[in-house]
């Protein structure tokens, strides 16, 4: 197991390097931050001066090696936009997104898993069909639109919650519900599908024939066997949400998190900050994948690393 983890961490470093270099090269070849930063009326002399100050007039290879040299020391430079160290900005914004994503995932799990189990247990009933359609609808609803609708109804008309902002539980509710809809849909479907598969398996029929109670079959056997699929789906959603998929919801609700940071960074072509964000996202996704893969060893005794 230890060897496996070490090898995976080495792969993680390769992924981080590869992604960072790719983003660096593409943005430097295609982007033009100087034009974005200066007002439209700036003269060519002013543009050239800024280009020189930012080091953008040096050859690409030289810029790349300088950047890699600092990156290994975890120094991503100073954000062009905010004039403070780039990595610090990223770390500052993460807690807000982490809070939102965790809340949304917890909500999804708490709602989707029991309902998915129930639907698998009673296939073909109204509940089952309702759950399948509801989860499909949830997956198709644009989070942006859903968020705005919830705000209009619950915050403006009923006044139960705030329309936007950050800081208290009351601020958290609507964004969490909006964000949770898609993972809920994913989880409900995968739970229902995996559980149904397990409940009809040969070993389940045998267990029932041996006299095992339905609860024992459900929780003692089927759920455990379905666990790997569920954890995979949950982990994938969790990782992608943390990596910036929260952007639409964060913008609608004025939630000061990582998603809005990425949108702003790309708009402003702030390369140091962008590289810090890319690094962070690569680390988060690789780590989550690693944790999910390691969990297989505990969930499925057949898997040994």
């Amino acid at each position, binding site marked *: 197991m230890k060897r496996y983890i070490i090898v995976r961490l080495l792969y993680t470093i390769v992924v981080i390097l590869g992604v960072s270099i790719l983003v660096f090269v593409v943005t430097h070849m295609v982007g033009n931050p100087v034009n974005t930063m*200066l007002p439209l009326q700036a003269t060519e002399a002013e543009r050239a001066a800024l280009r020189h100050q930012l080091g953008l007039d040096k050859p690409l290879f030289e810029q790349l090696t300088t950047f890699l040299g600092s990156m290994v020391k975890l120094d991503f430079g100073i954000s062009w936009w905010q004039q403070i160290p780039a990595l610090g900005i990223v770390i500052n914004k993460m807690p807000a997104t982490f809070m939102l994503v965790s809340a949304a995932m917890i*909500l999804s799990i708490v709602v989707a898993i029991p309902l998915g189990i129930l639907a698998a247990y009673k296939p073909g009933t109204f509940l089952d069909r309702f759950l399948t359609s509801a989860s499909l609808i949830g997956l198709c609803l644009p989070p942006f639109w859903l968020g705005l609708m919830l705000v209009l109804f619950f915050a403006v008309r009923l006044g139960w919650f705030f*329309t*936007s902002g*950050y800081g208290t539980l*009351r601020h958290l509710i609507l964004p969490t519900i909006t964000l949770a809809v898609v993972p809920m849909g994913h989880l409900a479907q995968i739970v229902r599908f995996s559980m149904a598969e397990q409940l009809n398996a040969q070993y389940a029929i045998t267990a029932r024939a041996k006299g095992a109670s339905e609860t024992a079959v459900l929780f003692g056997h089927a759920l455990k066997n379905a666990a790997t699929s569920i954890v995979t789906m949950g982990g994938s959603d969790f990782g992608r949400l943390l990596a910036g998929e929260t952007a639409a919801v964060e913008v609608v609700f004025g939630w000061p998190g990582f998603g809005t940071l990425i949108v702003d960074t790309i708009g402003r072509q702030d390369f140091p900050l962008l590289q810090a964000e890319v690094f962070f996202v690569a680390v988060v996704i690789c780590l989550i994948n690693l944790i999910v893969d390691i969990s297989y060893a505990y969930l499925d005794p057949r898997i040994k690393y």
Partner: protein
Amino acid sequence: MRKGLQFLLILSLVVTLIAGCGGSSSQPTQQSGKEGTTSTATKDTIIIALQGEPSTLDPQFADDGNMRAVTDNVFERLLELDGKTLEPINGLATDIKSIDDVTWQLTLREGVKFHNGDPFTAEDAVFSIKRVTDPAYKSQIAGNFNTIKDAKVIDDKTIQIVTDGPDPILPKRLTRLDIVDKKYIESNPDKVATEPIGTGPYKVTKWNRGVDITIERNEDYWGNKPQIKGATYRFIQESSTRLSALKAGEIDLAVNMLPEYVSELPAYKTSDGIEFTFIRFNTLRGPMKSKLMRQAACYAVDKKALADSLYLGYANVAQGQLAKPGYFGYNDEIKAYPYDPEKAKALLKEAGYNGEVIELVSERGRWLKDGELTEAVAGMLTDAGFNIKLTFLSWQEWLDTLFNLDKAPDMMFSSNGNELFDMDRFYQALIKTGGPQSAYSNPEVDKMIDAARSEMDTEKRLQLYKDLAKIVYEDPFGLPLLNLKDIYGMSPNLEWEPRQDSRITVFEMKLK
């Protein structure tokens, strides 16, 4: 087992309900209007929703509208702009006079203190001027002051500014130069961006990164005491969310409301915005080189219809120039080309237009309904007989195309924001041969532009610009379209007249 399942289901539903039914037990660490609006009797602070968070609170560094919404109340300038007439008036300087063609002398106001108690002196004024023009400081607004060569202290209350050649615009330039505390900046360089110290009617008390910025009235302010005791700025990027917040009573002022929201706003005010949209013609190459073709395009577009249908009337038709009354150099005798599609067709015929493809390039999303505007214009041009090929570029590509004369398309959508309210910048950028956005070239015009730039006599200077405006109107450099209005959503008990320079001036606001 049924019981087990039922228990599970009920448990999960109960948890969901608890999570869903609001936390009145939550600690209100971040105050928001919801708790405050019910007791209006003692309300003396307001909440303002901006489009984004300031990148810094160092007013000399960036060209950032969100920052200025805060710093315009915290810092002051030697000269200020009158919100209605757009003329420079006294600020931290009580007198300005031109000693000779390149030297200006200013008398400074006495008895002014910075928020930390430091007195405002001539040293601070000179330091502020030198700092913003220092290349090592890398200010993004240094271009506004590129004519200033030197500044020096003459005595306690007098300074002189020396310009590089005659600069009649210097007073207007000074209305954008914030005065900072020399002692504070030299001893606290790391606090400059986050804990600003100015001389203004408000001081910044807290900046919760990502959440809000709070300002409070400066009780030692030298000037008129503002009515509003304090303000909190929140950052809400999405305009519909700002609207919801206003309707729910959570905020008192929301910037940049869309015309469609006006019927839903509890109260609102408008002012003319700074941006003028227009179509730039490539007058140097291609089919639009012909004057008749360009005039035909000007007659083909119904600008009033655009203002009414796309912006619900919240836009003014630009009168044949990218300026309006109040801008120095505005020619009030010029009117927009009237909408006359028959005349356009006739001009096209006279020009011998053979139906060749004319490229119209635009971008989408930077300015309100820019994509729709360009599409509507393309439609009108096509109806008049132009063979238009409309292309949308990404913002980066569009910027690239704008600044690169080799890539200049026949027609290009653009917008011009003139923050000094002086036409020199427009001519330098868009008309002069070789200007950064120019696809125009006329040596006579170039001479006039240079002459006007350094003409110190106001009357003569004005006449030069009026003549220039006429020339580039009759030999069109482009097709001026619309001047959009800024729409501010307000709560019914907020009193404020928005300014023509789009500054958010809390010190001019009152609560009923």
